[in-house]
């Protein structure tokens, strides 16, 4: 569902010192950073404010937020504290989002780099595999993987990682294809530079910036996918995530819509934070846009 189109931009002429300054000056990046800090703070400080087991039934069911200050965000249909649940969800979401993206970015970069650099048959094979993963509806595949291998945090991370890499692979490949024929790369080649050195020192540094930007968006998407899996009942049965709370609150949707509403807002804020950050990064790393 990652519709935010990241085209293979011409490699940036940016050097890192200016990057932070540019990011801070970029409105979306700054807003994204603030939101992300909020979510991170919630995940880190939350357990101190609302300690305890999110699964424990601590009060009367379906307490509305603000009704009882012992449970500031109310309770769900089973009388479990929502604030504690939301904190747990924040930790799960961030963890799964980050690790799954790491997996996706690694596979994607490897596939894209090899295909783009070597071209020919290697590329053809790798691209067929990539296309295959783009043809299969990714969420359905993730559902099947988690269902077959039993729901747990590990299977969720692996499943999301496995379905999320094709976009990165395509981006990296496109970058490599362009850079491969750039004159400075040819110049390095005519110097007698070895292939690994050529890839690592000449091509990769120029290919990575948009990949980093895209990875931020992949995190956002991974968090949404995790929530959707948990919503369908494919979450880790021992871990309370935002999707789990929404899935549980469905039955009493009309009576206590806040049970579904609050974790949804948490998801929106987190995903928004990463999207904004990714967009800001993309602008800051892309000299093509800077000129506007």
């Amino acid at each position, binding site marked *: 569902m990652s*519709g935010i189109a990241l085209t293979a931009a011409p490699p940036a002429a940016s050097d890192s010192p200016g990057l932070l300054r540019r990011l801070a000056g970029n409105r979306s990046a700054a807003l994204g950073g603030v939101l992300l800090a909020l979510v991170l703070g919630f995940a880190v400080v939350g357990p101190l404010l609302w300690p305890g087991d999110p699964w424990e039934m601590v009060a009367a069911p379906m307490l509305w937020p603000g009704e009882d200050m012992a449970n500031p965000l109310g309770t769900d249909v089973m009388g479990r504290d929502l604030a504690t649940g939301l904190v747990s969800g924040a930790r799960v979401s961030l963890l799964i989002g980050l690790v799954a993206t790491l997996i996706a970015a690694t596979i994607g970069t490897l596939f894209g780099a090899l295909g783009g650099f070597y071209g020919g048959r290697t590329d053809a094979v790798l691209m*067929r*595999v990539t*296309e295959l993963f783009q*043809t299969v509806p990714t969420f359905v595949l993730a559902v099947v*993987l988690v269902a077959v291998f039993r729901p747990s945090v590990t299977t969720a991370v692996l499943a999301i990682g496995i379905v999320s890499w094709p976009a990165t692979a395509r981006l990296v490949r496109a970058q490599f294809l362009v850079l491969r024929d750039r004159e400075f790369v040819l110049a390095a080649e005519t110097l007698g530079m070895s292939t690994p050195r050529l890839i690592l020192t000449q091509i990769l540094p120029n290919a990575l910036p948009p990949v980093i930007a895209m990875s931020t968006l992949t995190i956002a998407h991974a968090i949404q996918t995790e929530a959707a899996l948990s919503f*369908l009942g494919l979450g880790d049965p021992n871990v309370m995530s935002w999707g789990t709370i929404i899935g549980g609150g469905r039955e009493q949707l009309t009576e206590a*819509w806040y049970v579904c509403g609050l974790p949804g807002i948490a998801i929106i804020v987190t995903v928004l934070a990463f999207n904004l950050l990714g967009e800001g990064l993309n602008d800051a790393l892309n000299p093509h846009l800077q000129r506007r």
Partner: protein
Amino acid sequence: MAGAAVKRRGLRSFLLRRLWQVVPVLFGIAALNFLILQVAPGDVVDVLAGEAGAATPEYMAQLRAAFGLDQPVPVQFAHYIWNLVTLDLGFSFRQNMPVLELIMSRLPATLLLMLAALAIAVTLGSLIGVVAATRVRSWVDTLLSGFVLLTYAVPTFWLGLMAIVLFSAVLGWLPSGGMYTVGAGLTGFALVGDVLAHLLLPALTLSTFYLAVYARLVRSSMLELYGADFIRTARAKGAGEWRITLVHAFRNALLPMVTMLAYQSASMLSGAVLVETVFSWPGLGRLAFEAIRTRDLNLLLGILFFSSVVVVLVNLLVDLVYVLIDPRVDPTARRA
């Protein structure tokens, strides 16, 4: 030689070749399914028949023989492929029906939902995109950017839930789920109207994300095209802004949108699973949800295979549309 004639003649061979290219893709999907079965815990038959003893022991034994589990893996794979080729997706014991039959009975509902969502997304998306592009940095444009950002962040299933709360529970305007009013026995136009009323919320929910994607895409391609040399040519010819926007820019902005459509047919099917679950829309997605709940893995794998096939066919259709609208695509050339 006129290009149009060449194109028409090329189209047939293009279609044939594209159809031929579908074969390895299908084979790959089948291989992927088989791979999942192979690395799954327990033996294939355990997975396929579902747990908790839903299948009779006789059928389990029969399945084991059919899969030749004593045979080497390649032979098992050959069996598996043959079953798929003969459209034998197995039997669902939970639903007591062949998987293929189940899927076919649910397919029309999903297609209806997807088409409706697509139609909404494409029309509204292009409209908003064009308007935003012609008024860059105006309030319309800012509003669109905000809407797009928010839409990207909102989980589809959550949006559906909230829509139910607002439009069904609070306002009472629209039904909260299902495809038609059960037991009303409506026919003719009344039935169509009833289905449309049921369709509206799920279709809007599913379309929201894509609407934002297309609006953004159309906006950015229009902006890029406004700087294109041939737009400058049109200006130099003395063409008016409306003519430039619609005849020259928008016509070209359609191309990336069609490409995007192909990319997103798979994503849309994924979205349909969630939306159907929320709205109890009796399609493939709802079927998948039921399969998850009952751990009917065979049915789930069948849905995965079948939905992939649907995506392949949709992509084929999009390719064909692309050839028709972009004269630069040479249908006789091989894929780049």
